[in-house]
């Protein structure tokens, strides 16, 4: 029981890393990023290639995360420009089509170009004893990375003026503009930040087990489910939902298999939309 629970929490934290980016990008720009899982893969594959090229592992991880952010910057400045020119429903639909296309492009390119590339990071110490349980040090490592990333993110959003500006755009974009906040530039910043968080999730996946070029779709879908359950405008809700669904996923995978686990997660998302349309912790941004 306990090992499954721990696995669930660890995976859940990773899901939160992915989903929080989806939440932020949607909250700020009204674009539901269907290529978000692929950003994680871009970060992870870049890291794997750098390590393969002889770069120091830690440096490669940092560069991989930065690479995912850089890739997100390019996407924001090129592909998403027409979406941001449109408004309301039109922007949402255009964003869906554009990011779906991007996800297919990334998947296709990576699978074709680097078919056997996978990111597997091994820690020197395989496991440690934690309160009577043997816990893989990789689990502790990935969890610490995720928790640290959240603390930094929440500190940024709550304490800094730019972070408050980000939240203000989510709540009222017109009001933010009238305060002198450039919503377009802030959106770019958030896309880069979300890309880096996704890249971090990708690298963490490599630490936890293994990250392959074909995992983008799965990451995107899991991230979307978590974002929906957490409430697509609530950051704290997304964090909570990630851990919760990670646990559900771990138990479901263990007892009924991964295929049914996916269906159970989708059911959870469906029930949330019906019962609490604005998410677990609505508006508690």
């Amino acid at each position, binding site marked *: 029981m306990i090992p499954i629970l721990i696995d669930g929490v660890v995976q859940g934290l990773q899901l939160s890393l992915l989903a929080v980016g989806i939440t932020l990008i949607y909250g700020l720009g009204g674009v539901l990023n269907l290529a978000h899982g692929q950003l994680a893969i871009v970060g992870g594959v870049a890291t794997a290639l750098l390590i393969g090229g002889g770069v120091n592992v830690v440096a490669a991880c940092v560069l991989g995360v930065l690479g995912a952010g850089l890739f997100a910057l390019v996407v924001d400045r090129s592909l998403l420009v027409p979406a941001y020119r449109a408004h309301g429903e039109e922007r949402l639909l255009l964003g869906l089509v554009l990011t779906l296309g991007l996800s297919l492009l990334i998947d296709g390119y990576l699978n074709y170009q680097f078919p056997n590339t996978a990111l597997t990071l091994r820690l020197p110490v395989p496991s440690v004893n934690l309160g009577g349980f043997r816990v893989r040090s990789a689990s502790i490592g990935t969890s610490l990375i995720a928790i640290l990333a959240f603390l930094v993110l929440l500190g940024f959003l709550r304490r800094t*003026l730019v972070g*408050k*500006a980000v*939240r*203000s755009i989510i*709540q*009222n974009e*017109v*009001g*933010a*503009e*009238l*305060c*002198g*906040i*450039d*919503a377009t530039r802030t959106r770019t910043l958030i896309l880069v930040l979300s890309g880096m968080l996704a890249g971090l999730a990708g690298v963490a996946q490599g630490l936890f087990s293994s990250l392959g070029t074909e995992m983008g779709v799965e990451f995107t879908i899991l991230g979307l489910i978590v974002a929906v359950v957490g409430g697509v405008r609530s950051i704290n809700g997304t964090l909570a939902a990630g851990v919760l669904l990670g646990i559900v996923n771990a138990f479901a995978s263990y007892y009924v298999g991964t295929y049914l686990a996916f269906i159970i997660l989708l059911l959870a998302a469906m029930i949330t939309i019906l019962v609490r349309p604005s998410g677990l912790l609505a*508006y508690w*941004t």
Partner: protein
Amino acid sequence: MSAVLRTEGIEVRYGETSVLRDVTVEVERGEAVSVIGPNGAGKTTLLKTIAGVLRPRHGRVVYDGVRLDGRPAHRVVRLGIAYVPAEKELFPQMTVLENLQLGAYVNPTATDEHLAFVFGLFPRLRERTGQLAGTMSGGEQQMLAIGRAMMAGPKVLMLDEPSTGLAPKLVAEMYEQLSRLKAAGLTILLAEQQVPLALALTDRTYVLENGAIRLAGPSRDLLGDPEIKRAYLGLA
């Protein structure tokens, strides 16, 4: 004297309908000017165009020798024109203090100084710093909206229907603060349905009807104008 803020023959359209036609409005430095007129006359459109929320199809908006039309709203604020829209556009899930801090986004180093000024203007905001903006009453939200605009340290304050939805006592209180701001040298452009209040506060008034300027003159003179009396003051 030359105007610090001027619209030159602006035309604004929503789709095919023009909402403003050839509107020229001038505001001098330190002057308070009101725009009155029936619902749908184009008052809000005029203020939104100056604020950079809307773009004019024709004509220019000039502030202190700089063209404003075509600039996005966040740039206009930086030039010193703050706009309090009728919808207030506050951040409902943020505290009063956070709303005010964001008002000073264009000049964060002046936050404390401007905060003291705003609290002096509306002491009630000081008592409510930790309250979420969305949970405040209409009157308090209006004060917060004006306070947030003043946090930018503007030279020109534009207000759209600040009295709407407020109890008469609060309206009187708010107008008292506006006249204090005017006395302190702030330039004010006000759109208002409550004509007597607007005329009492301001030096000059434009009457906007069907998207065009119908009448303009010193507010004192308009207060005595029989046509204004009949149309806007409800007097026979």
